[in-house]
């Protein structure tokens, strides 16, 4: 087993999208960076997610960062020198009931006020745009920003790029203690100890647990999202599909497999680490999917799984300095954090390098929760 360096400018806890997208710009700026992961790098939410990069499903508070993130996703192939499976076919956000139609109109208006123009489609125009939609779909908004990428390719590309830039990414290195030094922190892991000037907690669903090592309370819970994939099939749907009620995400990858998600909950918890699919919710998920895209009935389901998506109690990202813990930061729990990861990592690195950010991320400041020193 390789041992970790004894010191670094920055230590990042968690090798998911949040951790790696923070590490890359830091390394580019010449900082020495160690990224620690409890299990295998990219082995949790970032490796298990659906790869949907939808702008129009995001909350108004995060539209600006998501838009920036999609720009970064688009540039990632050139930036990393490797394919991340990015495509921007645009997306439809569908509504199936009177209530959802109202919500969709409201959401569209709010988005327009924030500078995101989407297009209202119904009737023949909707069927022309997406003949594969079922009759239960009453209307949809079209957003040409909506995109997708492959979490499998992206993980490989980000890890390879990080290693190439000299970042140490250490697997099997659970952080078990963090001690404050005169300046910076001493981080104890299952694979050795490392001292650093700056520390970032990017531990996804387990961010609360890691913050507690510093005596900081963060209200972090986790959803147990389920996802399913079909066998490869001929081209069936050529756009990203999302749902106003938040119960479906659908898209077909170039290899023909269709990914079916929608935040249906599996069983288990991030505390127990148990994550199983929930049979009944799997049936519901498939029924919603077939109601929206009836041709899915003829495909074979090959695998379903569940993963942990960390979420703060107000469902906004945690991004910023930990109050009362100089040099310690958090970047975690963005809802749809895979989409937003590149931009949130960029902002985090800017804050660490310059003390400022180019985007307004004040609402994500962990100070809104942190009862620092509560049990320090």
């Amino acid at each position: 087993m390789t041992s970790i360096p004894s010191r670094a400018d920055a230590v990042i806890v968690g090798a998911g999208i949040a951790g790696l997208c923070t590490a890359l710009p830091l390394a580019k700026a010449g900082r020495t960076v160690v990224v620690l992961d409890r299990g295998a790098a990219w082995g949790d939410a970032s490796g298990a997610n659906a790869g949907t990069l939808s702008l129009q499903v995001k909350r108004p508070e995060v539209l600006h960062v998501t838009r920036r993130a999609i720009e970064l996703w688009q540039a990632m192939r050139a930036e990393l020198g490797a394919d991340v499976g990015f495509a921007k076919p645009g997306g439809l956000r569908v509504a199936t009931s009177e209530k959802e139609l109202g919500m969709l109109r409201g959401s569209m208006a709010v988005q327009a006020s924030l500078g995101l123009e989407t297009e209202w489609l119904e009737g023949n125009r909707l069927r022309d745009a997406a003949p594969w939609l079922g009759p239960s779909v009453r209307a949809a908004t079209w957003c040409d920003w909506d995109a997708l990428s492959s979490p499998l390719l992206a993980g490989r590309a980000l890890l390879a790029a990080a290693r190439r830039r000299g970042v140490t990414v250490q697997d099997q290195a659970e952080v078990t203690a963090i001690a404050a030094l005169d300046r910076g922190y001493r981080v104890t892991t299952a694979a050795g100890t490392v001292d650093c000037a700056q520390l970032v907690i990017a531990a996804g669903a387990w961010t609360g647990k890691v913050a507690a090592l510093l005596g900081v309370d963060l209200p972090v819970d986790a959803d147990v999202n389920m996802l399913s994939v079909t066998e490869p099939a001929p081209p069936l749907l050529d756009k990203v599909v999302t749902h106003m009620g938040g119960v479906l995400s659908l898209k077909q990858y170039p290899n023909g497999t269709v990914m079916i998600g929608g935040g249906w909950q599996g069983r288990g918890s991030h505390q127990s680490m148990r994550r199983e699919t929930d049979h009944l919710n799997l049936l519901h998920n498939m029924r919603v999917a077939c109601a929206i895209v009836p041709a899915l009935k003829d495909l074979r389901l090959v695998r379903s799984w569940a993963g942990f998506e960390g979420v703060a109690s107000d469902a906004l990202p945690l991004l910023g300095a930990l109050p009362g813990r100089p040099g310690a930061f958090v970047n975690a729990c963005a809802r749809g954090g895979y989409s937003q990861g590149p931009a949130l990592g960029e902002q985090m690195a800017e804050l660490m390098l310059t003390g400022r950010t180019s985007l307004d991320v004040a609402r994500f400041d962990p100070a809104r929760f942190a009862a620092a020193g509560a049990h320090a």
Partner: protein
Amino acid sequence: MMRVDLAVVGAGPAGLAAAAEAVTHGMTVALIDDNARPGGQYFRHVPPSFRRTAATAFDKDRARAEALFAITRHPQVTYLPEATVWDVPEPLTLAVAAGPRSGQVEAGAIVVAAGAHDRPVPFPGWTLPGVVSAGGVQNLIKGFRLVPGTRAAVAGNGPLLFLIGASLLRAGVAVAAVVEAAPIDRRLPAALPQLLAAPEILQQALDYRWALLRAGVPVLTGWAPVNAEGEDAVRAVQAAPIAEDGSVDRARARSFDCDLLVVGFGLVPSVELLRLAGAGLRFDRRRGGWLPERDEALETTRRNIFAAGDGTGIGGVELALIEGRRAAVEAAVQLSRIAPFAADEIRAGLRRRWKRLDRFRRGIEALFAPPKDFLALQTPQTVLCRCEEVTRQEIEERRAEGFRGAVQLKSTTRMGMGRCQGRNCMATLAALVAADSGASESAVALPKARAPARPIPIGDLLHETIPPPDLPADPHLPRKRRT
């Protein structure tokens, strides 16, 4: 939702025997199998509409098979053919995909008799047309009386090779060679005492060998296929000596012309469902790899879930029949359907025969114990995962990038992520990781078991009546879930 005393997964010898025993104790049974006809692997038979041309093992066993199949028409038995058990949503509930009949089966006890499937071992050319698995050829001969070639070679590891060689001869096909990786001739004397525990089965095996000898078929033992040659179809196979440590001596390779190469490296127990049910597994390489842990009553580590037959370790048809009965008796005991003394009597008879056959099985396992691994058969261009067309070279490239574990190699190459979901290639990946890390195959952490146990049409999931969903009021907020 159907409710029965006993749910039996698999209508092969073990499952049929379990159902037949269960009804004698008054139990209601659901017998679920994904084939159109009962019989599983051994009693696979031609549809009644087919004309018979040649004799097969099935004809010999016809009376026995017909008696077993009768259980599918018993009034206490609900037989569900063309039905796939794909999930275990509750400890004693099975989810079944069967077109409009899809739904759940709730049972007092479950016997999983899911059988085994071919173990694919990659070597150069193994994906060429004309290279077929032992199970596949057996199915064609038994199920359709078809042999897809005129001059066959048979290669791999395990007792089935001789059976296949002999049945090919009987079907009128020339056999160019039989290539067996284990040095069985050298090992025979040591294994003989155990093999004599079942002289009637030994006699069968010797008959097959004798038929090959009489036909002048070269039989190479301690040799393995190292290349299947041909452009759009197999033309010849090269074989070379293989040592116990898995190394091959390509310099001594011999070539055999053939237009059909039958490859069989033994069978792998189908344990997906048991993994989904959370049953504990143990590793036994000679017996096929990962097997369910069972106690003497054939109960898994999950209460009232029993496992029987080849799905618990390859044992052959006679053992499967005994285990099926035994599992049903134990289920009857658990559900208080049989008096303890009556159970003891049946157990005693079964145990005697089981012991004898198990002794024979150990002899077969000693005789055919495979080399450490078959990794030396591969070249960089060899395809390891057919569904996603992943080559050995791609694995090596990912390793050089720092990805080493099975889960990481899977997600960075897509090996095991295709249609078969690793049923065919996970053992290869585990062997590669084990060789790389110096650990044993049993220590390699494999991807989790996930529904569906086998691919199922999504349309099958729309028929059942289920309670309405609990929809989120605000999809952005944390969702409700059952823990």
